[in-house]
């Protein structure tokens, strides 16, 4: 299958994402933020970083990039999209995922491995996980405190849209295991249709035990498996 990695000015995990899917034997291209037309991709990756310097708010400017119009169309036609860290923030600002991101409650940039509980393994992004599986994937962010109003949270729960929660090594999701103040320990969510995922942790940084964890591979392996099963339409 073929991945497209979006590159905004200030993206800094684009190379890592490109490497991660290449490592798994997949084709991959970079897509520059000025590109308004592209075709032939089975999955788009919005990588981490500081798009447009994170000016105003993380993701606020990137969402109006020329490339985003096509990304929205791609999402509407069922294409698979994963936004990681800043990519997640852009998807929220663009309204492709519900909610908003606030500054970490500690006011600190947090860069470390965290434990995540897999709350829904029935998605195109988590089919290689077992339900409730605890995985270790690093976070690196300053604005990762997920927020949604009560009504939105209710809808997220009703549709099983909460995919990952921060937890202890044994899968306890109580508040004290939340690194950033995120509502109900939310680390990753998907849209109602299940083709757009946003997550703060960086799976592309957890591709090898040598790097501390290889649990991130499962995210990309899930996408590949889903694509082989015909999930996520190609935009052609």
């Amino acid at each position: 299958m073929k991945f497209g990695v979006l590159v905004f000015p200030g993206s800094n995990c684009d190379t890592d994402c490109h490497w991660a899917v290449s490592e798994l034997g997949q084709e991959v291209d970079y897509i520059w933020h000025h590109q308004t037309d592209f075709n032939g991709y089975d999955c788009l990756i919005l990588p981490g970083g500081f798009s447009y310097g994170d000016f105003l708010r993380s993701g606020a400017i990137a969402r109006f990039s020329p490339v985003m119009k096509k990304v929205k169309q791609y999402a509407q036609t069922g294409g698979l999209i994963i936004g990681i860290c800043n990519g997640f923030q852009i998807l929220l600002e663009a309204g492709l995922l519900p909610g908003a991101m606030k500054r970490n409650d500690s006011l600190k940039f947090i860069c470390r491995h965290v434990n995540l509980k897999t709350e829904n393994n029935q998605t195109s992004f988590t089919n290689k996980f077992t339900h409730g599986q605890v995985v270790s994937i690093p976070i690196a962010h300053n604005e990762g405190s997920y927020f949604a109003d009560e009504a939105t949270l209710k809808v997220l729960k009703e549709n099983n849209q909460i995919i990952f929660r921060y937890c202890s090594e044994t899968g306890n999701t109580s508040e004290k295991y939340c690194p950033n103040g995120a509502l109900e320990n939310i680390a990753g969510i998907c849209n109602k249709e299940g083709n757009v995922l946003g997550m703060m942790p960086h799976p592309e940084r957890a591709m090898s035990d040598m790097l501390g964890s290889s649990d991130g591979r499962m995210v990309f392996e899930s996408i590949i498996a889903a694509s082989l099963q015909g999930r996520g339409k190609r935009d052609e």
Partner: protein
Amino acid sequence: MAKAKVFVTLKEGILDPQGQTVENALKNLGYNNVSNLRIGKYITLDIEGDNTKKELEEMSHKLLANPIIEDYQIEIEG
């Protein structure tokens, strides 16, 4: 040409850790009479045209503030 000011603040009820930290710092300086300190953004701009109020509303809603977590207030001078 009009001068406009846009004030962006976190919605009431949304935790503002930055505001809390600054409030605590003021208290450490002895200003124990301070409470409810909130930090926001203050944007100034010049704007031309007849429809500035409506346009500023749109700008604030679309880009300057994130209506999920922030409120905004617009002031137009002249």
